[in-house]
């Protein structure tokens, strides 16, 4: 919950968000942008292996949601989860280290880009099977309800997820059990390589389904961190007060392809340029200036982040690959993999 003094710290008297929170929102977006760009550069240098799914262009959602969340709240992410993991405060070197499959990685290279998890930061996993984590988030929310804990489970997913069964099972389940969970749909207009409207019966893949489960239809501008923040804050307050789940659809756009293998040639001419004008970071930077934040403050956030990413990259490059003896650890709770005597 925001402190009253934070809310009134804004430079303008009508600012409901406050300067401190605004600067946090900007810093998070910049950090995610720079980390994702670095991940892409490292991929080009063959230092990030396997696959990776970037959130370039979608930073305002990760930043807005994470800023609205309380420290004890839980995040359930998808394979496009670098942004949400970083937004909860997970050190960037641990994220890049995992992408580079180094021993300093968040999971020492045992999970990889698609499974970023940091239980200590409330990041309860990144799930690479579409829809799987919506019911799992319900379960975590059920535990909160059962034990009387006030935390809320937040589940991120893309527009493509709204067409899989687990989405519908989870929404119904969360409503009938009145669970403290927030379903956060990032509609970036493409289900992998296919325009979402080609494969979806309704115009707004998440919001138009809300009514089927007795939920309010909520659409926000996913490129506006303030709007995301405000809307999510309300949904989290409702969940915490025992009001049950919410479903939010945030409209946004993915600047790059689906994964590192996708040059996104299927996009119509000019579409990307149009969305680049609505770049969430550009929007937010302009807004900070309008709110009277001076250029130096903004620049220092950008520079500090750049040097943080640089240090993190060097740390990761210096880290060895994971030792071979962890190949068979942690299959079972005894720490090992024995299945017979």
């Amino acid at each position: 919950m925001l402190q009253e003094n934070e809310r009134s710290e804004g430079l303008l008297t009508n600012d409901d968000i406050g300067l401190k929170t605004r600067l946090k929102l900007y810093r998070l977006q910049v950090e995610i942008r720079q980390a994702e760009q670095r991940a892409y550069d490292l991929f080009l240098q063959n230092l990030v292996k396997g696959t990776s799914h970037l959130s370039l262009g979608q930073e305002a959602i990760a930043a807005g949601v994470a800023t609205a969340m309380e420290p004890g709240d839980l995040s359930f992410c998808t394979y496009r989860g670098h942004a949400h993991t970083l937004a909860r405060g997970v050190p960037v070197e641990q994220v890049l280290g995992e992408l580079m499959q180094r021993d300093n990685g968040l999971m020492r290279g045992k999970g990889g880009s698609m499974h970023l998890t940091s239980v200590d930061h409330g990041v309860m996993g990144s799930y690479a099977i579409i829809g799987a984590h919506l019911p799992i988030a319900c379960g975590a929310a059920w535990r909160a309800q059962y034990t009387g804990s006030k935390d809320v489970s937040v589940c991120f997913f893309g527009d493509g997820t709204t067409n899989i069964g687990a989405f519908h099972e989870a929404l119904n389940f969360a409503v009938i059990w009145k669970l403290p969970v927030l379903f956060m749909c990032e509609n970036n207009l493409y289900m992998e390589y296919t325009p979402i409207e080609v494969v979806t019966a309704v115009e707004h893949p998440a919001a138009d389904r809300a009514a089927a489960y007795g939920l309010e239809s909520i659409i926000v501008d996913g490129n506006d961190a303030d709007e995301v923040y405000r809307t999510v804050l309300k949904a989290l307050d409702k969940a915490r007060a025992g009001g049950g789940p919410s479903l939010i659809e945030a409209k946004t756009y993915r600047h790059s392809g689906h994964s590192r293998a996708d040059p996104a040639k299927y996009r119509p001419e000019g579409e990307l340029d149009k969305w680049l004008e609505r770049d969430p970071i550009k929007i937010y930077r302009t807004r900070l200036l309008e709110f009277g934040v001076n250029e130096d403050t903004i620049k220092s956030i950008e520079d500090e982040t750049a040097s943080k990413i640089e240090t993190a990259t060097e740390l990761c490059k210096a880290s060895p690959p994971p030792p071979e003896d962890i190949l068979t650890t942690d299959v079972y709770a005894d720490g090992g993999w024995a299945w017979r005597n």
Partner: protein
Amino acid sequence: MAELSYREAVARGIAQEMKRDELVVFLGEDVAAAGGVFKATEGLLDQFGPTRVRDTPISEQAILGAAMGAAMTGLRPIAEIMFSDFIAVCFDYIANEFPKSRYMTNGQVKCPLVVRTGNGGAARFGAQHSQSVENWAMMIPGLKVVAPSTPSDVIGLLAASVRDPDPVIFFEHKSLYATKGEVPDGEIVDRLGTARIIRPGKDATIIALALMVHRAREAAERLADEHGIDCEVIDVRSLVPLDMQTILKSVAKTGRLYTVEENPRLCGWGAEITSIVADEAFYDLDGPIVRITTPHIPLPAADNLEDLALPSADRIVAKIKTTLN
């Protein structure tokens, strides 16, 4: 000591654990108000109330996903999947989510839960409500796989499963729910990964699971009475962890191994054990290892056809008699 049915044992086992630990919660379709379609969970709602014993929609993914989310954040859930055939519609959780979460997070995520499910045939339910699918679970690293054959084992192994820190798939046999057995008074807690010799013998080793344990025992009695063949019968009880030492020791003594498996032929659990025995105890064997299984077919509904398909005491007797020497 009291005589209890296998289905009553399920309810007693769950109740024992719910009484012990209030973090144990139970969810599934028709499990609360209706007491379960097999009446195996009757009375639990009255005893523990609607916050701990919860009916769910027909949403198997939601059931298993919710169980996982609860488990990884501190509860000890028991989830019911009514028929084990339905595991196919929520297999993601069994195959990808429960068993891999600990490994791929480098030990950060824990998943202590139990999935109880009605497994097996001989109830004339046809091809989609009769399968023995324990091998679907056995093949996945990270899971534990249990299949009790008696009421007493239902309680003891269920308690061990609930207390186990890993995800356990607990296969109850539908055709055993009405069977009865002696059950000791008081708390019963068994150990996973322990096979049990239920009939000692010297001529051949028969290993079996769940319903097949009873058929193997009947066959062994008849082989002894009618043909003078003395078989050792082992109830495997738990496929993961697998008590290979009990099986290898028995084979060392008898020199012959028969598996009795209700699953269709290919990749049944007996195939894995056969391979281990061939690998590690080849010189203890006096003849080929023989697998007695359901043929590689879907199960039919008609009683005469289903009886023909599932390994019967008659078939076990005939197979052992003709192959032993």
